[in-house]
C-alpha cells in the first residue's frame, strides 16, 4: 500500500471505515523512511516498536486516532531521545516526560513516531547547523530544505511523514515549509503550550504543524492548541473550532499587502508566484488593500538582539552537570562548565551565545537589549494598526526559493537577513502560515516550491486558515 502518501483526513476516513489499521500506516511509513531517508536525511531516528505499541492503545474514535505524527527533535517525548541537533545531547539524553503537545496528540489518538533533524537548538535557516547529519531538499537534493525545522518539512515533502510538528522562533516552521512545498503554521504566541519544548528564545518560540494540506494543519492545531497550567505564557482562552469555517471562502475579507515586503531583493520568479496567488484570492472575492508596516526594516536587527539574548540565558542550563555532555577530565568546576560547553556546542550556537551575552552585559544592556524591546513595541504597533483595517496580511515567506547547500558559513549575517519576512510575526506574537503557491525554475533546472505567507491578528487562526484554504483551492491544478 502507499498510505504514507496520504493526508490525515483521507487516512482518518479509511481508518473509521475499518479499511486500514494504524499498524499498516506505520509499516508503510517505516518502509518509506528506509527507502528515502538515506538521501533526504529528515529523520535522526524512529522507533517502530514503541509506535506499534502506542498504536495498539490509540483511541481511533478521536480526531487524530491512529495517525502517526513525527516530531522535531526539540520536543520531549517520554523514553525517546531529544538531541536538538546537538552533540551536547546526542546519545546522552532520554526524555523523562512528554511535552504537553505530545500528551495532547496522544489524547487525540495520534501516535508520536520519529525524531526529525533540525538546526542545532533551532538556530539556523537551512538545517546545515545540525551537528548530527545533513538534511536535503526532497525537490532538489543539492539544496537545503530550509530551517530550522528542515527535517519536519523534508519528511512531509518526501512522503516519509504524514504530518510533523516543528517549532518557529523567527520563521523556522514557515520558511522550510515554503522551501519544501508543504503547509506550515506558527500559531499565536501562547496558543500552544511550550512545556517540554527545549527553549531557544522563550518570548518568540511557538510549536506548530507541518502538513500536506491546510485542512490537516487545522486538524493538528485543534488537537495541540489550548491553555496549559504548566506554561505560564499559554493563553487562558478557549480554543476556536478551526474546521467549521475552513471552507467559507474569502468573499468579503480585506487582505493587506504591506508595501515594505515587496522591495528589491525578492527573486522576480518568487515575486511572480506570490503576486499570482494574491490575484487568485482577489478573483475569489477578497478585497486587496495596500498597507504599510513602516518598522519592517528594523525587524532583523531587533530579532538578532532579542533572540540571542534569550538564548544565552536559556542555554546556560547545558553546563555538563545534570544532563548532556560532560568533558572527560575536568580540572575543576569552572573547567567542567567551559570545556563541556566548548566540546558540546556547534559554531552557530556559540556565536549566538556570545552575541546574547554581550548585549546583556553590563554597560550594553540598555543600548542593545532594552532598545530592541522598544523597537519590538513599534513593530507590534504596526500590526495592531494594520489589523484595524484588514482581516489578514499577505506576504512572501522568503526572498528566494531554497538555496544550494554549503557556502553560507562564512557570512552568517547574510543568512540572518533572509529571515526578514518571517521574523516580524514572531516579534509581534501573531499567527502566520506558509501555503504552497507553485514552483519556480532553479538554475540547476529543478522546480522549487514557493510559499505565500498569511499573517493573522492575535488569536486569528480561524480566519488565517480560511484564507489559507482559499489559497490552496485557487492554486490547485
Amino acid at each position, binding site marked *: 500500500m502507499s498510505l504514507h502518501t496520504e493526508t490525515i483526513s483521507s487516512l482518518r476516513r479509511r481508518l473509521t471505515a475499518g479499511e486500514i489499521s494504524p499498524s499498516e500506516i506505520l509499516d508503510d511509513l517505516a518502509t518509506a523512511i528506509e527507502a528515502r531517508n538515506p538521501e533526504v536525511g529528515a529523520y535522526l531516528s524512529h522507533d517502530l516498536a514503541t509506535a506499534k505499541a502506542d498504536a495498539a492503545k490509540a483511541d481511533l474514535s478521536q480526531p487524530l486516532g491512529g495517525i502517526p505524527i513525527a516530531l522535531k527533535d526539540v520536543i520531549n517525548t517520554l523514553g525517546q531521545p531529544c538531541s536538538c541537533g546537538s552533540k551536547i545531547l546526542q546519545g*546522552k539524553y*532520554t526524555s*523523562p516526560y512528554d511535552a504537553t503537545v505530545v500528551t495532547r496528540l496522544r489524547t487525540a489518538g495520534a501516535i508520536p513516531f520519529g525524531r526529525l533533524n533540525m538546526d542545532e537548538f533551532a538556530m539556523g535557516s537551512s538545517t546545515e547547523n545540525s551537528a548530527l547529519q545533513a538534511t536535503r531538499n526532497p525537490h532538489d537534493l543539492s539544496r537545503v530544505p530550509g530551517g530550522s525545522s528542515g527535517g519536519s518539512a523534508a519528511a512531509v515533502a518526501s512522503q516519509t511523514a504524514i504530518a510533523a510538528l516543528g517549532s518557529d522562533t523567527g520563521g523556522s516552521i514557515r520558511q522550510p515549509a515554503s522551501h519544501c512545498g508543504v503547509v506550515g503554521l506558527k500559531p*499565536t*504566541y*501562547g496558543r500552544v503550550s511550550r512545556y517540554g519544548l527545549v527553549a531557544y528564545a522563550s*518570548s518568540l518560540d511557538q510549536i506548530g504543524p507541518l502538513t500536506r494540506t491546510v485542512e490537516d494543519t487545522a486538524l493538528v492545531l485543534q488537537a495541540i492548541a489550548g491553555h496549559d497550567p504548566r506554561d*505560564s*505564557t499559554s*493563553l*487562558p482562552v478557549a480554543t476556536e473550532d478551526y474546521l467549521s469555517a475552513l471552507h467559507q471562502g474569502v468573499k468579503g475579507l480585506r487582505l493587506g499587502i504591506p508595501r515594505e515586503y515587496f522591495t528589491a531583493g525578492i527573486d522576480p520568479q518568487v515575486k511572480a508566484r506570490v503576486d499570482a496567488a494574491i490575484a487568485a484570492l482577489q478573483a475569489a472575492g477578497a478585497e486587496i488593500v495596500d498597507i504599510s508596516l513602516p518598522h519592517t526594516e*528594523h525587524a532583523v*536587527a*531587533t530579532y*538578532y*538582539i532579542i533572540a540571542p539574548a534569550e538564548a*544565552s540565558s536559556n542555554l*546556560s542550563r547545558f*553546563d*555538563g*552537570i*545534570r*544532563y*548532556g555532555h*560532560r568533558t572527560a577530565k575536568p580540572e*575543576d*568546576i569552572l*573547567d*567542567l*562548565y*567551559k*570545556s563541556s*560547553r*566548548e566540546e558540546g*556546542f556547534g559554531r552557530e550556537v*556559540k*556565536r549566538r*551565545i*556570545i*552575541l546574547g*551575552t*554581550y548585549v546583556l552585559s553590563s554597560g550594553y544592556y540598555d543600548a*542593545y537589549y*532594552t*532598545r*530592541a*524591546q*522598544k*523597537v*519590538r*513595541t*513599534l513593530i*507590534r504597533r504596526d500590526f495592531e494598526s494594520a489589523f484595524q483595517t484588514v482581516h489578514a496580511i499577505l506576504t512572501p515567506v522568503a526572498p528566494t526559493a531554497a538555496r544550494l547547500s554549503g557556502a553560507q558559513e562564512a557570512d*552568517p*549575517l547574510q543568512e540572518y537577513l533572509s529571515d526578514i519576512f518571517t521574523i516580524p510575526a*514572531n516579534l*509581534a*506574537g*501573531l499567527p502566520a502560515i506558509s501555503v504552497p503557491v507553485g514552483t519556480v525554475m532553479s538554475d540547476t533546472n529543478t522546480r522549487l516550491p514557493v510559499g505565500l505567507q498569511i499573517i493573522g491578528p*492575535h488569536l486569528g487562526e480561524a480566519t488565517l486558515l480560511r484564507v489559507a484554504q482559499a489559497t490552496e483551492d485557487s492554486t490547485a491544478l
Partner: protein
Amino acid sequence: MPQPHIDVRHIANLARLELSDEEIAGFQPQLDAILGYVDSLSALDVSGIEPTAHPTVVAAPMRDDTPGSSLPTEALLRNAPDQAQGQVRVPRVVADA
C-alpha cells in the same frame, strides 16, 4: 561613532565557553559585522516607547499552591553524566581553606 567591537575572549569567558584561538579569530569579524548591523537601531527615536518583553500583554498569572506529582528521581538521574547516592556528582566546588 566608533565601529562596535566585541571582546570575544572576555565575553566567551562570561558565557562559560572555552573557545580556541582559531574560533576566536573566525568569530571576531563575523560578530563585529552582526553588531554593526544591529547597531542600526540606535538611529531610531524610541523615547517614550514602552519595551515589549513578551508579545502578549497578560499579567503574570497566579495559580493555587497545590502539591502535584514530580518526575521520579531515578528517571532524572539516568541523564546525569555522573551520579552517586541518588545525587548528581560534580568535582569539588569549595577550595581548601
